[in-house]
């Protein structure tokens, strides 16, 4: 019995000694640094969200390849908003409470953002928003929210840049006439707001318009509105609908033999293969970026090359460089502040001069309501030989406007 007891005692001693030894050895190892976490929310089923999320991951990979931020690894957790306000708001809650992220990034669609704003206000983490142009969202954010940074221009910023752009173009190219406008707009809130804004912004011009039912909402037949536009004989024809309308409207315009001198499309996003169609040639569009900007901006080229090398596709939407910007600008502020504390990062962001892959160098300043607005201008682009070329602002111009629009 005593022999057995001694053996058992010895075994226990050996066992406890081993556990103690192993534990003490582990204790001497360096504890891995906690990652700095970015929580991203984009609609991943849409090309805008898909490419924004990919571009954001690209920055994270670049940061980690260079030793992370302040010696800590960087992590991006992306949740799909599915273009649904409820899901978008739930994503904010999850990122804040379960994933415990340090920063919020993301955004596409004002409707989704309106659903997310109450949750964002609850956590007051530094937020760098890539989408939402509606000034209704700006009002919902309200004044004095220093943690909120908005990259995308608001609707009134966009409107002002269109007026400025067309005035500049008409002044520089005397053959281009912009006196008579016709706006074909989808009958929902987006199209109606576009028509109202155009009437206000271009109040010194002759303007008429007609609603149509977008293919995205069960329509897709534009012949009546095109016929009306043709009868009106405008200098500038704009359609404000969705990506699903883009190619059918061009096909039907050709079928009714409608060729206005300027044919502008103003959907929030274009089908990725629109440029492959011959009907895209000389169609004018609005946007913040196009791959052609890489010809005049080294930062843009660096971004585009890295994106193409990683994903084997061209970033087709301006949400890609916006997604990249959203992470990189915070990373630069964190480096400058030497901290991830909210107050320190906000202070660094307010002082930043950031050379963006969209071409412009931006800093944050107050807009109509919020304290920290980034980009304020849209660009006027035109499809030429399958590429989106910048025709305004002239400092980023990659081509002269092709005029008049012909087939």
């Amino acid at each position: 019995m005593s022999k057995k007891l001694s053996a058992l005692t010895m075994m226990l001693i050996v066992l406890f000694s081993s556990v103690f030894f192993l534990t003490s050895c582990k204790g001497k190892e360096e504890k891995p640094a906690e990652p700095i976490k970015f929580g991203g929310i984009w609609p991943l089923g849409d090309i805008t969200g898909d490419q924004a999320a990919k571009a954001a991951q690209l920055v994270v990979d670049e940061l980690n390849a260079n030793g992370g931020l302040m010696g800590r690894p960087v992590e991006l957790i992306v949740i799909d908003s599915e273009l649904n306000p409820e899901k978008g708001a739930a994503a904010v809650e999850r990122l804040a409470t379960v994933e415990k992220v340090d920063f919020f990034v993301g955004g596409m669609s004002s409707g989704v953002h309106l659903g997310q704003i109450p949750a964002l206000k609850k956590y007051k983490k530094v937020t760098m928003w890539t989408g939402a142009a509606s000034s209704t969202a700006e009002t919902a954010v309200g004044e004095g929210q220093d943690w909120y940074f908005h990259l995308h221009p608001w609707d009134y910023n966009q409107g002002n840049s269109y007026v400025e752009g067309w005035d500049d173009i008409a002044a520089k190219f005397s053959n281009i006439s912009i006196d008579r406008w016709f706006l074909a707009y989808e009958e929902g809130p987006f199209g109606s707001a576009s028509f109202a804004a155009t009437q206000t912004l271009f109040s010194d011009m002759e303007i008429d318009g007609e609603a149509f039912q977008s293919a995205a909402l069960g329509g897709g037949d534009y012949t009546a509105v095109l016929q009306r536009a043709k009868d009106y004989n405008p200098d500038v024809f704009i359609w404000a609908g969705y990506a699903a309308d883009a190619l059918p409207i061009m096909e039907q315009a050709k079928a009714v033999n409608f060729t206005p001198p300027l044919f502008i499309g103003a959907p929030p996003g274009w089908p990725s293969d629109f440029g492959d169609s011959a009907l895209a040639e000389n169609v004018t569009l609005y946007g913040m970026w196009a791959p052609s900007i890489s010809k005049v901006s080294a930062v843009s080229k660096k971004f585009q090359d890295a994106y193409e090398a990683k994903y084997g596709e061209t970033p087709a939407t301006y949400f890609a460089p916006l997604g990249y910007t959203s992470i990189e600008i915070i990373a630069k502020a964190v480096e400058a502040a030497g901290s991830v504390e909210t107050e320190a990062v906000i202070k660094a962001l307010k002082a930043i001069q950031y050379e963006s892959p969209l071409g412009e160098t931006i800093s944050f300043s107050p807009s109509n309501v919020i304290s920290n607005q980034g980009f304020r201008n849209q660009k006027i682009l035109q499809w030429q030989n399958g590429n989106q070329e910048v025709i305004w602002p002239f400092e980023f111009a990659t081509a002269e406007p092709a005029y008049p629009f012909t087939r």
Partner: protein
Amino acid sequence: MNKKKIYTIAGISAALILSVILLIIRPTILVYGIQRAGIYAAIALPMALVLGIVHIVNLAHGEMMMVAAYLSYFICTTFGIDPLVAAIPTGIIMFFLGLIIFKTSIAHTLEAPELNQLILTFGVAMVLSQSVNLIATSQPRKISLDYVSASATIGDVSFGIYDFIFPVLAALFLAVLIYFLKKTRLGKAASAVGQNPRGARIVGINVDLTYTIIFSLASMIIGVFGSFFITKFSIFPAVGGTFTMKSFALVAMAGIGNLPMVIGASLVLGLAESLVMSVPHGAGWSPMIFFGLIIIVILSRSFRSKQ
């Protein structure tokens, strides 16, 4: 001459007079109205067949068309063929997809209350649209085709002529279906099942097989239409929903099981919509005209039957 004939002649005369007036005032109203009617009729006919024979309101009708359109799109982009050619393989695939959907789900609810059938087919619709959303994303897709922009000019009026393919397609569907129902043994059996399933079973008709064939045949027609659909429209996972509603409304307006009247109802609605849309700022009224006319027709039919 009975009242029905008088009503028919009066209706046809009114339609002819209206057409002549439109042709004189604004010919494009007539052109676009007929083209629009062709689209409505072509998509509503397979629903009329299913509703008339199997007595199922298939709420997945538009989503099946959407699936067919995606199938056709991928066949076209993979094999480099034209959508009008892809209509054949798409139709065949949709025949079997319809068969699977029917045998695995709808067949089990034929005896159940109508609400159960509605909820079931609504569920099928959700599964189809969400599956496509996951596989193909919500990004709209469209095949660019030169011939869809073909136009004709008469005097100083230019209009697209490709869309006349839809009325032709609808007429072809109707002809094939009428031939099938009137001239073939299976079609006659289907008509009998549509009128009185219990009686048909007693006289030895395989009712279950008839239902299966009819649903699969309707799915095949939807498949063929899906291929034509992508020539004109962009496709995305939610594109089918509206066509379910419009098809159901047209079938209700035409009268359950009355296939030729689906064409008539489509013409009335297509022309009415085209007329309203030709008026400045009238586009917003077109959905109201569509459903308003349907309410009027159904109510007047109801009053007539009461009398």
